[in-house]
């Protein structure tokens, strides 16, 4: 049941590049990554593409398919119309290395800027007790496979290179939210630094990150907006600010 499909693949590197047309076979049940692999094995031996698990678990095969940031291993060929031309390019918010491979090191730099989890000093191995309902919120964010599709689609950096230095991006807002909601984390100033150092205020909650997340993490509703509200608690709400002064604790 093989059919021929037309692919437009971006080929090139950081100096130059262009979309190239190829015709390739696609079989029933295949995903875009399979077809790219077939191109690689039969027509373009040196076509660069990242992948690992082929099951949407590792977040390696991020690219843009018909202009949308997606995982190539989770995009089924059957989702395209018969005869439809399929355009694949590397992520466009990051520098390109070669062909479909982008330089995502920005994200690893940002990961380094988020202060780590701090365990209570008085809790030894096996002494921690946490209820399921208390860990669930953070668990949602720990589903993240670091595909960086959310980072790629976020207009704050996609459209404004200069914002990269001051903006951590949705992937790391969920990391901050995860830690702020972690029942045992001891570090107390995450809300304030989210706003002052990691650029939470730059996000205008336009929700593209949520739209592209392959893990269906509700990034905006469950992490960014709650964090924005928590920031208001400590920074912009005079009533709560006063309350916290009196009770000497962070909201």
């Amino acid at each position: 049941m093989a059919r021929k499909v037309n692919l437009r693949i971006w080929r090139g590197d950081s100096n130059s590049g262009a979309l190239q047309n190829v015709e390739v076979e696609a079989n029933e049940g295949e995903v875009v990554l399979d077809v790219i692999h077939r191109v690689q094995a039969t027509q373009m031996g040196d076509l660069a593409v990242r992948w690992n698990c082929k099951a949407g678990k590792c977040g390696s095969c991020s690219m843009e398919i018909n202009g949308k940031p997606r995982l190539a291993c989770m995009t089924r060929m059957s989702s395209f119309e018969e005869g439809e031309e399929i355009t694949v390019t590397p992520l466009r918010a990051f520098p390109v290395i070669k062909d479909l491979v982008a330089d995502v090191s920005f994200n690893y730099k940002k990961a380094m800027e988020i202060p780590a989890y701090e365990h209570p000093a008085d809790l030894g191995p096996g002494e921690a007790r946490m209820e399921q309902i208390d860990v669930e919120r953070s668990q949602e964010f720990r589903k993240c496979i670091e595909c960086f599709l959310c980072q790629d689609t976020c207009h704050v950096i996609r459209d404004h290179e200069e914002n990269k230095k001051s903006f951590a991006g949705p992937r790391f807002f969920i990391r901050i939210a995860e830690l702020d909601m972690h029942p045992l984390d001891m570090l107390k100033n995450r809300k304030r630094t989210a706003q002052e150092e990691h650029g939470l205020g730059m996000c205008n909650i336009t929700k593209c990150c949520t739209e592209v997340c392959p893990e269906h993490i509700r990034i905006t509703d469950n992490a960014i907006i709650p964090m924005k509200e928590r920031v208001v608690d400590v920074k912009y709400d005079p009533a709560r600010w006063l309350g916290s002064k009196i009770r000497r604790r962070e909201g």
Partner: protein
Amino acid sequence: MTELERYKYDVLVIGAGGAGLRAAVEAREAGLRVAIICKSLFGKAHTVMAEGGAAASMGNVNSGDNWQVHFRDTMRGGKFLNHYRMAELHAKESPDRIYELEMWGALFDRTKEGKISQRNFGGHEYPRLAHVGDRTGLELIRTMQQKIVQLQQKDAREYGNAEANIRVFAELTITEIIKEKGVVAGAYGYWREGGNEVLFEAQAVIIATGGVGKTFKITSNSWEGTGDGHALALKAGANLVDMEFLQFHPTGMVWPPSVRGILVTESVRGEGGVLTNTLGERFMFKYIPDVFKDKYADNEEEADRWYLDQDNNRRPPELLPRDEVARAINSEVKAGRGTEHGGVFLDVSKRIPAEVIKKRLPSMWHQFYELAGVDITKEAMEVGPTCHYVMGGVEVEPDTAAAIGVPGLFAAGEVAGGMHGSNRLGGNSLSDLLVFGRRAGMGAAAYVKSATAVAVSEASVKAAADRIQAPFTRAGGENAYSLHQELQEVTHNLVGIIRTGSELKDAIEKIADIRKRSQNVSVAGDRKFNPGFHLAFDLDNMLLVAESTAKSAIAREESRGGHTRDDFPGMNDKWRQVNHISSYNGSEVVVREQKLPTLPKELFDLFDIHELEKYMTSEEIAKGGSN
């Protein structure tokens, strides 16, 4: 060519999976400078794909559990071919390793009392797997990745440079371990991105490169599972032990073809999934081997009751060790009771409400829904065996993870052998990574502190560099992609789940032939992120691994765990006392027999004599273990 990049570290960790990261943390915390190297991006290693959980006898769900029970299960699962000391250390130390992760920020699923929850898995007597839904490996990797970031942040504060003492070199492939004067001096490799070469000088090298699945056609492994570490170790003079034992996971996806092999986690069965053939028969009841008769239910009523009351009922046969289930499925399909795509049915939809399925098995639901268009809350899955895990691996000292025969070389994780015997229990790998990753880190640290460094000679550098350049200098040679496919056909057909002597002999010849032709592989394009070039090296490693597997398999004339011989069915007491040791003589893999270490008395006594009688000769029983 640009100038060679050179780095100097105390410890080099090849592999950023669970084992590599745990080793790196340990070595860094011992005060050493550490480099971590991996072929993919940081955080993408195979370990992220592990689903079910990590086995540790914390006894949070059933307080009857303890290390002795875990040890017994592990030995039983491995059919007593395990290195007892590794199984012992593993059973004793796993709980602490899990707690440690929690202290680094991991969020496991909880019990009602707020402890770490544990789930049932094949071959484990009690609920034992710490888990997070069905994405436990991800939690493990992310936690350690973040732990490493934390160490780097600390270094940034202290030394003004986050990478002062621990650095991750992502997308870099190691092609050679360099020895000078008989001891490890470093390693050589290339950046995948630019193709430029790198020399690492280090006193200790820890191999943590994971598995070999890509040697086979149908596998749950990613492209990284090419047995690099196995081959690197062999070439560096280390031994591989028991390479004939490969685990075929009973439940891989079988349809559509492009997802063939992708894993369907055992938790599906742990949560109540049932296997049936096309006649609707729950066939596993027919396949309970004698050694397991008293632990597994022989009728549906009891099996069903077990989910509610585990103390008074025997467990369902779907939860037999993997080798048994894989063989059973294989037999059903061969007997014509399989689906049109060559699988059997696995169903949770009739037993568990839809919302519970989505909560407990979210990524399975997702995987089937997105990739196969199957809603597992409503329909059965189609599954069949897939090459999943290699029990064989580098022969190591259990306590230090030091590779035997090569000072300065260490191995941990899937690449190390011995721990799992002839068959690994589900969940025992993730805990293995943590236990022996840590031990490798400690072992390397102790070694570095006592040994003196040797410099890498220019001759070694040149030899390594020439090897990398070679495929570009050959024009019009063989295509690496097609050789890889050929190899996969051979292993799948001749060294697969059921083997016979004549086929193995055939396989050995064919592998040798492919290996000869592979010397002539040529590569199109330049060095920059060129998958064809990358495959040329991976292919070399896979060929060595396949050779070692085929040669060990032909030598073992019995069926045990992950090695089934049609011509020698059943276990044989004689063979239980034998390990197969592979070594490399510069041109081919040589396999010899080595006597298994004897179980010490205190471990021997943990078992019921009647159970041991099923595995051991009467002389061994009479001796009652060593002292």
